[in-house]
């Protein structure tokens, strides 16, 4: 690898050294002026430049700019001077460079959407006018990203704002954000987009939990401080992203950081701070009529089974009528009794009001040749659950140095320290809410707060928990305090870049960047109780992840006029990518001395593990865009990758793309009228290849670190390798239009697309009897097609009142078109008790939900019963799909004088979800819905299942191949009355009643902002000071009972199955922003 790098460096130095030094100007033409908005406010940070000469400057905080053009290059010619800033419509004027000073002012109008702005392209090395792009690109400015509310993860701030980008919030604070653009392309691989910061790919690795267990450690993109981001460009598919390489098949999120600007030596500061308070947005509807117990009875003796159901954890016990019963709070003397009453808020009271304090301060400035920016950000979050805290400290330093007229250099460095304490668990085993699905409705939560009481039953010694139940559960406060999980990530993202002007309009950029982090996770489990074995004095684990990716690019970009109104923008370049990641873990299930969490304190041989993953890709790429008279552009791109993960000799793959765009209103000026101001059509065809993950070419033995009586062990892996893997290929075609009407008060950006990913590298399930559970194969194809649109309206704009409303809408239809031979489906995610799963089923949309349901009479469809209880199938039945029919967002901004009111509504229509919260919550008797059929007298139970009694079917009856029941003779209707407890417990493993329509409408964001008077702002040495009230997740409308149907328990493809998800935080608070 170093050999390659050296070659690169050598090649670059030859290139740079061979070129003549820059000519020194004798006399110069100075161009200066002021840029203001329509409203005559000064606009800082506007780029004013003469593109053909590569000369220009940014405006300062008063809107002034100034730069000089050497006289050798300013010999009386007329040139185009352009002023542009994201969020505003660019303007271009022609000036003649005569040697005399030129003053040129600009007044820029805001653009509701960036139909005509510029976007970064060619891997961040250059900018292109958006009007010339042949594929859908959405750009969000810093105002759109950060101007509304504050989230720690920048992707959460994009929710509902970009059509076709489906962002799923984590259920937990600090958790994973799942992002899917235009549907899932990969059956079993990643469907997450590539993140690129200033041209350097950065990690968005995640450590997520699963429905079964685990903690959600979030995704690493949350390290990026949103306040450091100038703009975000969403490249939605292969068409826009082909040059970004194989990881671009799921789209690319391009982030451009804020930079220092020429400020004539003054320091520009900006500052933002917010304080918000969080509460669970939704908790379940509990029943409060019956307490712990079974069959209506309960007696506490030791909480572990010595009394009648005192080791049980369901609430089918005695009615909560105030009768006196010996309870866990009453000590060991069983003659002591307390009133048996409900504690309706015993779950809600577990949650605290969370508090998030977030601040970023930045300073920037510079001269026309040298500028820089430094920022410091800090987040401090006290979570909603006790003893849960996150902190993030980030700094960023970036600088640019124009060495001479030809050589421009820049560098950025970010350091992030991200820590978590007790990140919420998700899924069955670790979810903090699991404690409350199996709970006594009579339990007084406050009695549990002092979890170490020593004088009561089962707590004879110190530091042992006191609880309502000692059989299955721990005291939740004990868990949070005594079994802490801490994690910390130290991360450095850095890049250096040098751009050399080879000739007018031709630049060579050499850039190298790395993303490096180490992530440590420590878990501790305290000695929990009297039952623990003699050697068990607690447990611990330490896990350490290391990640390092370096990308080095050489890119030559040229922009030339070919005459006859044709200009060409061409790029040629190469990239080497080197990635190494590793995980080391040590754990012990038994400590020697209690309270000392050091692996050397292990009472038994610790379990250790190590895994290393290395990969590399070399690439060459090129593109050429020809533009005729600024209205017709045809572009072709091509890239070839050589990957380390594919078989030698077959590891090269080529992927081309072609796109075109026509600005109709420029091509046919007569189209322009008082209504239509801008019209563009575009089309694109692209192909992207993708390689395998490492080490899939040879089957290997796995070592087992724990020796068996000192004996080493090896076991052959369960996945059969494939030495003949091929790259997978995504093909995409899209058409779009961008329209501006009524002076851009109405804009529409719409796209239709079709994607096809084939030869997918996937792990295909094979018969385990082969000795392997799966095999790496090239098989399968997913087709995605859909449309998306963003319609922006400014219905009101007068008397300083402006109302902007934007609606985005996306529909995607996926089809699993092919799978491996002989395979009809691939499992994506599994339920808790082998009773629900999500699959990619042949011919179906990606993510079919299958559950075990009611066994029905194959002739009549009636539910079959046995002894009055419904029977379930042992096989899975298709029950919906996790894909939404459509998703959309509705964003409103109302400004009047210095007041801005914004509101964002996020909609999902269609798709399904399976909820274990509802299933388990009913079978455990916790939920209000489990009151069905409960009577005061347990001898007079109340549920008669409407169905057919299986025992009444005639000879020859039996289960059919589809899992239904052939009832010979038709049988007789069930008439047996069963009690509520038996009924709901009989539904265990029958998830049919718990599949829901996952549609929802959410009031995602509300913001009310006030611009302080400018004289106040000037006291801060700033242009504007804004104070805002902000709120997130304020309202939810859904048909799904008890839970929020929008959630992600992992960053993977296993979505659509819910268990005990911690509800989204509803947050309200304040934000202060000082803009220089």
């Amino acid at each position, binding site marked *: 690898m170093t050999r390659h790098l050296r070659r690169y460096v050598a090649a670059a130095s030859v290139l740079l050294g061979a070129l003549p030094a820059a000519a020194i100007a004798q006399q110069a033409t100075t161009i200066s002026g002021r840029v203001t908005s329509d409203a005559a406010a000064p606009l800082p940070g506007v780029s004013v430049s003469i593109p053909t000469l590569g000369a220009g400057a940014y405006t300062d905080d008063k809107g002034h700019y100034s730069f000089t053009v050497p006289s050798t290059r300013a010999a009386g010619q007329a040139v185009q001077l352009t002023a542009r800033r994201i969020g505003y419509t660019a303007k271009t004027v022609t000036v003649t460079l005569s040697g005399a000073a030129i003053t040129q002012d600009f007044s820029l109008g805001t653009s509701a959407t960036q139909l005509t702005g510029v976007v970064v392209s060619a891997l961040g090395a250059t900018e292109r006018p958006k009007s010339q792009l042949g594929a859908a690109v959405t750009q969000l400015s810093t105002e759109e990203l950060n101007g509304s509310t504050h989230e720690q993860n920048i992707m959460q701030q994009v929710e509902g704002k970009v059509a076709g980008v489906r962002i799923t919030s984590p259920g937990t604070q600090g958790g994973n954000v799942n992002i899917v653009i235009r549907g899932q392309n990969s059956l079993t691989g990643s469907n997450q987009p590539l993140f690129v910061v200033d041209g350097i790919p950065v990690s968005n690795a995640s450590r997520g939990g699963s429905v079964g267990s685990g903690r959600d450690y979030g995704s690493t993109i949350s390290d990026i401080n949103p306040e450091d981001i100038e703009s975000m460009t969403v490249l939605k598919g292969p068409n826009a992203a082909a040059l970004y390489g194989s990881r671009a098949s799921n789209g690319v999120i391009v982030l451009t950081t804020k930079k220092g600007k020429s400020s004539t030596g003054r320091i520009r500061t900006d500052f933002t701070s917010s304080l918000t308070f969080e509460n669970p947005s939704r908790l379940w509807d509990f029943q409060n009529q019956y307490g712990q117990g079974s069959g209506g009875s309960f007696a506490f003796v030791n909480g572990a089974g010595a009394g009648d159901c005192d080791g049980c954890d369901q609430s089918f016990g005695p009615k909560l009528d105030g009768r006196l019963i010996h309870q866990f709070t009453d000590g060991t003397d069983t003659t002591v009794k307390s009133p048996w009453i409900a504690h309706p808020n015993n779950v809600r009271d577990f949650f605290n009001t969370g508090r998030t304090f977030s601040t970023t301060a930045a300073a920037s400035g510079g001269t026309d040749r040298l500028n820089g920016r430094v920022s410091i950000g800090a987040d401090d979050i006290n979570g909603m659950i006790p003893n849960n805290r996150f902190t993030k400290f980030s700094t960023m330093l970036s600088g640019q140095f124009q060495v001479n007229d030809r050589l421009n250099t820049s560098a950025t460095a970010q350091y992030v320290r991200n820590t978590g304490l007790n990140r919420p668990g998700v899924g069955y085993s670790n979810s903090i809410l699991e404690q409350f699905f199996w709970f006594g409705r009579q339990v007084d939560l406050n009695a549990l707060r002092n979890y170490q009481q020593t004088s009561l039953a089962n707590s004879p010694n110190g530091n042992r928990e006191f609880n309502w139940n000692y059989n299955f559960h721990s005291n939740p406060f004990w868990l949070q305090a005594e079994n802490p999980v801490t994690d910390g990530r130290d991360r450095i993202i850095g890049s250096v870049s040098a751009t050399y002007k080879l000739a007018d309009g031709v630049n060579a950029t050499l850039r190298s960047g790395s993303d490096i982090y180490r992530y440590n996770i420590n878990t501790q489990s305290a000695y929990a109780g009297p039952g623990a074995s003699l050697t068990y004095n607690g447990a611990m684990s330490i896990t350490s992840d290391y990640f390092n990716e370096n990308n080095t690019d050489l890119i030559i970009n040229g922009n030339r006029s070919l005459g006859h109104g044709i200009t060409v923008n061409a790029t040629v370049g190469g990239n080497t990518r080197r990635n190494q990641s590793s995980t080391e873990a040590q754990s012990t299930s038994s400590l020697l001395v209690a309270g000392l969490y050091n692996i050397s304190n292990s009472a038994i041989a610790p379990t250790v593990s190590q895994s290393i993953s290395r990969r590399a890709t070399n*690439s060459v790429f090129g593109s050429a865009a020809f533009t005729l008279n600024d209205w017709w552009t045809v572009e072709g791109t091509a890239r070839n990758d050589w990957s380390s993960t594919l078989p030698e000799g077959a590891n090269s793959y080529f992927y081309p793309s072609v796109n075109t765009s026509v600005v109709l209103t420029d091509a046919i000026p007569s189209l322009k009228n008082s209504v239509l101001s801008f019209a563009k059509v575009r089309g694109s065809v692209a192909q992207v290849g993708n390689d395998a993950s490492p080490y899939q070419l040879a089957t290997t033995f796995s070592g087992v670190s724990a020796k068996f009586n000192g004996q080493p*062990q090896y076991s052959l892996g369960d996945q059969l390798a494939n030495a003949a893997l091929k790259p997978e290929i995504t093909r995409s075609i899209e058409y779009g239009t961008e329209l501006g009407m009524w002076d851009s008060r109405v804009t529409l950006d719409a796209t239709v697309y079709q994607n096809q990913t084939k030869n997918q590298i996937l792990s295909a399930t094979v018969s385990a009897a082969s*000795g392997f559970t799966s095999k790496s194969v090239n098989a399968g194809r997913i087709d995605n097609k859909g449309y998306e649109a963003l319609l922006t309206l400014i219905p009101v704009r007068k008397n300083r009142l402006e109302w902007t409303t934007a609606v985005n809408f996306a529909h995607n239809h996926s089809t699993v078109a092919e799978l491996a031979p002989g395979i009809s489906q691939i499992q994506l995610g599994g339920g808790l008790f082998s009773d629900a799963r999500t699959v990619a089923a042949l011919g179906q949309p990606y993510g079919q939900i299958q559950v075990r349901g009611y066994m029905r009479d194959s002739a009549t469809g009636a539910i079959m019963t046995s002894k009055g209880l419904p029977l*379930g199938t042992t096989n899975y039945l298709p029950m919906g799909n996790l894909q939404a029919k459509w998703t959309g967002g509705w964003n409103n901004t109302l400004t009047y004088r210095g007041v801005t009111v914004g509101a964002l509504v996020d909609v999902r229509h269609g798709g399904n979800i399976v909820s274990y919260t509802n299933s388990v919550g009913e079978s455990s008797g916790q939920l209000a819905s489990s009151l069905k059929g409960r009577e005061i007298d347990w001898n007079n139970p109340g549920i008669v299942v409407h169905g057919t009694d299986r025992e009444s079917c005639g000879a020859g009856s039996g289960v059919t191949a589809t899992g239904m029941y052939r009832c010979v003779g038709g049988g007789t209707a069930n008439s047996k009355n069963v009690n509520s407890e038996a009924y709901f417990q009989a539904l265990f493993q029958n998830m049919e009643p718990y599949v829901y329509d996952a549609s929802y409408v959410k009031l995602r964001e509300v913001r009310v902002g006030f611009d302080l008077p400018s004289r106040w702002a000037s006291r801060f040495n700033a242009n504007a000071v804004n104070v805002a009230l902000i709120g997130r997740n304020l309202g939810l409308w859904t048909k799904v009972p008890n839970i929020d149907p929008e959630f992600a328990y992992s960053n993977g493809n296993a979505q659509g199955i819910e268990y005990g998800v911690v509800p989204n935080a509803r947050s309200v608070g304040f934000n202060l922003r000082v803009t220089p």
Partner: protein
Amino acid sequence: MTARKLLSVAAGVAVTLSGVACDNSGLTNINKNPNSPTVAPPGPVFTRAANLAVSEFLGSGYDQYYTSVVAQHLAEVQYPDVDAYRRLDPASTGTAFNAAYSAELEDLTQVVKAGRAQNNPFYWGPASIVRAWEFGYLTDSWGDIPYSQANQGDSSTAVLSPAYDAQKDIYTDLFKTLDTASKALAAANPGLTNLGTADIIYKGSAIKWQRFANSLRARYAMRVVNADRNLADAQLKAAFAAPGGVFTANADAAALVWPGDNTYNNPWGGDLARDDRRVSNRLIDPLIAMNDPRLAVYAQPTQADPTKYAGLQNGMLQSQLGAYVATTSRVGKALFTASTSYGNFGNAGIARPSYLMTFAELSFIQAEAAERGLGGLNAAQAKGFYEAGIRSSMAQWGITDQTAITAYLASTPVAYAGGTPGLVQIANQKWIALFGDGGQAWAEWRRTCQPTTVKPGPEAIQNTVPRRLLYPSTEYAVNASSLNAAVARQGADAFTTRVWWDVNSSSAPTYTAGCGTR
């Protein structure tokens, strides 16, 4: 800069880049797996396979969750789903099926391959014997299963959808495999390297592996007696006569001794720690009635009354069970390997051996063979074998009070009666001795219909005790045509379908009318 210059720069860049890109062996070398090798020595692979195999079939899932409950050694006190046969479904039981093939059977196949390549029976012999042991559990539970084409995914034939073999053919091959292994071990050059300490069952002792192979052959021979009495007779004779003979003492028994280091503990206790199970009244009632010394080993007094043992009725409703948690007996401390958060109910068993096959089981096979005149034995020998079976079972469970044992052997329901009543006694004592090996207990119950008290519980969703397990859903998904051929041959994939050897059950001398029917 002129266009020509530009072109030459571009060409230079292109050449440099292609040079980087085309250095392909350097690139693909990065893909050499730094975590795990493509070849591993047979010893460590055998160690892994042996303890995985034992965990699988004498451990939590197959054994304690399913077969020990179906055989009614255990009953479920918290979630009576398997007890009601609700959860005895392919998605649950299929785990053992799939794991067996993809984990330990594959590893054992690798050891057999390596041993064959080195022409060393001390490697392939033990591996093929453990393989034959495990295939017995698989075919007894499911009937026809992949066998002759199993574990060939990475062979040159790359069989990914193996055919299902008829159980009769599997048994034929198991006899042959055990015969071959036993003879090869006897004939091998003792100077060859053996597995040594990597052999965590017999430490490389060839003679003990021969005795295990021959005893296992006797197990399988007796298993098929209802289907093919002549085959059983011939195989019993061959097993008893094979080089090395059969077990002669508890010390010969095939046992895997667990380190008990909290990483590798006897798996039986792991799930007892959930407090989900109690000893079934089908097991406790006769132990109490016969004043059996093993009662205090198999079970603990109830929590509510420490002077009392009480078994739990199988197949009740969850809503009926709350009161039984404290009033029925947990599994004995000797087996309770883990202590729990609700109390310390034993920790003695973490290093207790798991018995792949006991001397007691062999003795009962010999007793039955003798009583029925099979395998060259005669009825006069039956009593001796029967008593040896009980005594070795007592010893195996740590009961040393010889006076009590002698008194037990002489007591009314235990003293050997001979004839068909003797066969009933043998079957019941064998079923009791097999506690902790649910797979064998269930298979023996199916074959002998003893004890006759084993019937579906009152709330079970079917009226008969299952005769087999259902094929895993993954096999329907990825190996359907092979599976369908098996179903066509064997009968519907249902609990009521009987495996090949489970026929003519009424021809068993111990058969009782209405066997296993509620």
